[in-house]
């Protein structure tokens, strides 16, 4: 499948700014999906509200563009009513971790079979650059003009603690690893969560001395540390995540029974 058979060319031009990381994520996703040879007509894409949540609307398949924060709840209903459908959720840090935090935690716990890709750009991009729940400590945004005094959420660790079957985090600098992880996530039975740290040069980089997207990618490269190394050093993730260091890699890969198997809904498909 060519990339423009996968993405709807008739929806171009898209809403993303020049230098946005969403294009990289979309490219990696297309490659993973294509290499697995998955049927597009049997895959539904769900998004909430925000830049990353717009991606489902550009894919040439069934798309459910929902309310802010509730994509996982919508996807849960969709998957359980039509178990033969593969469900992929595209979401962002604000959509998933802030307004949708409760659905995220309970989605991981319930372990319904779906792939959730969170493009974490550490900012509310679509509304113009307000601090989000993943904005690093002391970084600038329009609502933290003296620097962010809060500390960021570690979404991947949260997913591990809440019970997701598969959890990984990469950055838009790690395209090969990200593509490979997306393939694993798409094949994983149960709740698979992929967090991608992504650049928003327009609304994050510009206010934090990284207006050029390549500067942000350099920053990702320099700050990234494999989770195995972080684990052995037994450091405090809470403080280190994004503030000085981005923990990357596969966080968990396990085979808890997914919700459909537990309630026996699959045979009704």
């Amino acid at each position, binding site marked *: 499948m060519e990339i423009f058979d996968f993405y709807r060319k008739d929806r171009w031009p898209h809403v993303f700014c020049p230098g946005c990381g969403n294009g990289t994520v979309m490219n990696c996703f297309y490659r993973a999906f294509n290499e697995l040879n998955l049927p597009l007509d049997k895959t539904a894409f769900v998004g909430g509200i925000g830049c990353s949540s717009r991606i489902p609307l550009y894919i040439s398949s069934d798309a459910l563009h*929902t309310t802010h924060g509730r994509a996982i709840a919508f996807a849960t209903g969709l998957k359980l009513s039509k178990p033969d459908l593969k469900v992929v959720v595209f979401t962002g840090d604000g959509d998933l971790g802030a307004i949708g935090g*409760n659905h995220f935690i309970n989605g991981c716990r319930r372990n319904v079979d779906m792939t959730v890709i969170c493009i974490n750009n550490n900012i509310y991009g679509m509304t113009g650059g307000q601090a989000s729940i993943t904005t690093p400590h002391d970084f600038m945004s329009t609502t933290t003009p003296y620097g962010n005094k809060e500390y960021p959420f570690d979404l991947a660790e949260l997913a591990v603690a809440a019970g997701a079957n598969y959890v990984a985090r990469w950055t838009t600098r790690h395209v090969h690893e990200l593509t490979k992880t997306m393939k694993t996530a798409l094949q994983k039975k149960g709740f698979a969560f992929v967090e991608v740290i992504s650049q928003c040069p327009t609304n994050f980089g510009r206010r934090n001395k990284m207006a050029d997207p390549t500067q942000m990618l350099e920053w990702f490269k320099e700050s990234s540390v494999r989770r195995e190394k972080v684990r052995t050093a037994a450091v405090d993730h809470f403080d280190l995540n994004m503030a000085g260091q981005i923990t990357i890699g596969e966080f968990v890969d396990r085979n808890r029974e997914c919700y459909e198997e537990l309630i026996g809904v699959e045979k009704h498909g």
Partner: protein
Amino acid sequence: MSAAKGEHFVQGNEACVEGAMSAGVRFFAGYPITPSTEIAEGLAQRFKGTNGVFLQMEDEIACISAVIGASWGGVKSMTATSGPGFSLMQEAIGYAAMSETPIVIVNVMRGGPSTGQPTRASQGDVMQTRYGSHGDYQIIAFAPASVQEMFDLTLESFNYAEKYRVPAFLLSDAEVGHMRGLLSIPEHLRIVDRKEKGIKRADEAYDVPDDLVHPFPTFGKGHKAMVTGMTHSENSRIEPEDVKTHQELVTRLSEKILKNRKDINKWELVSPDSKTMIISYGASALGPKEVATKDQRVGLLRLKSLWPLPEEPIFEAASQCERILVCEMNLGMMYWPIRRIALEAGCKKIELLSKIGGEPPTPSDVRHKLRGMGAI
């Protein structure tokens, strides 16, 4: 899957469960809340051994979101809640209206605002049902007054939600929901299924023109459905800045309901030629009905439909009588639209009997008010 035909002695909420099962509900997502919990418990029980999915979600926002998602999977889906939970659902109700998703929401009304009276009946949510989410939209709402109507109107809520691709509401209350009485399930039931894209069936849903209600593109069938709460064109292209697209879309969402008011509206008349007409609905119509059946000077128009407002029967009643008494369990909500229609019909004397606190107006409350009006 549906209950045995014939007669049963059940609770209102149990009759709602049977109505939903008879309509063919396949998905329920709920969160415990008094006084609607028996509906969730009932469906959890009734789905056992069927292809229905029961889901207890983390909050009411998740419930209605899952219900909308399930509807796009092509199954009939519903939720049931009460006051505070209903407030939480409002944003997604607007989404369901905008994306034209057929769903059923049961609201067993309790006394509000806020936590209010969890175990007591009220009719305080009738305006929230119509206007609760932001923006212009229309919905369909029914108000049952008996155990039998909890069954009948749950079934009708599904039928009309499916036919018009709209969220439909069953506005019950703690009184009717917890009332026990006779439920008679007939041999033959009228069941309407949604008009599906790419399928031609001889079905009532197909009677509505395509330009008013578009055929439903079920997910997973190669339709490349694009469902969004943003302003979108006929071919589901997002056009949030386009004036004409927004005008056309939002106007159509309203018109598909308002133009079909006569098809949707249901009511009951007792002694329609009386000089005094009581207009009421749900549990608060029980006292007035007793008065109207015993006293020939008094008639009753009992609204089984609340939204879209049954304007024609109200107009007709108002143009034939000298005075109207609106009877409801809030401080005057349906009173105002009814008053508007009555004034248009030339009836000048329109009074309100409102009773809040959890008890429906008794026949003696009604007689006392009518005496004060000089009606009896």
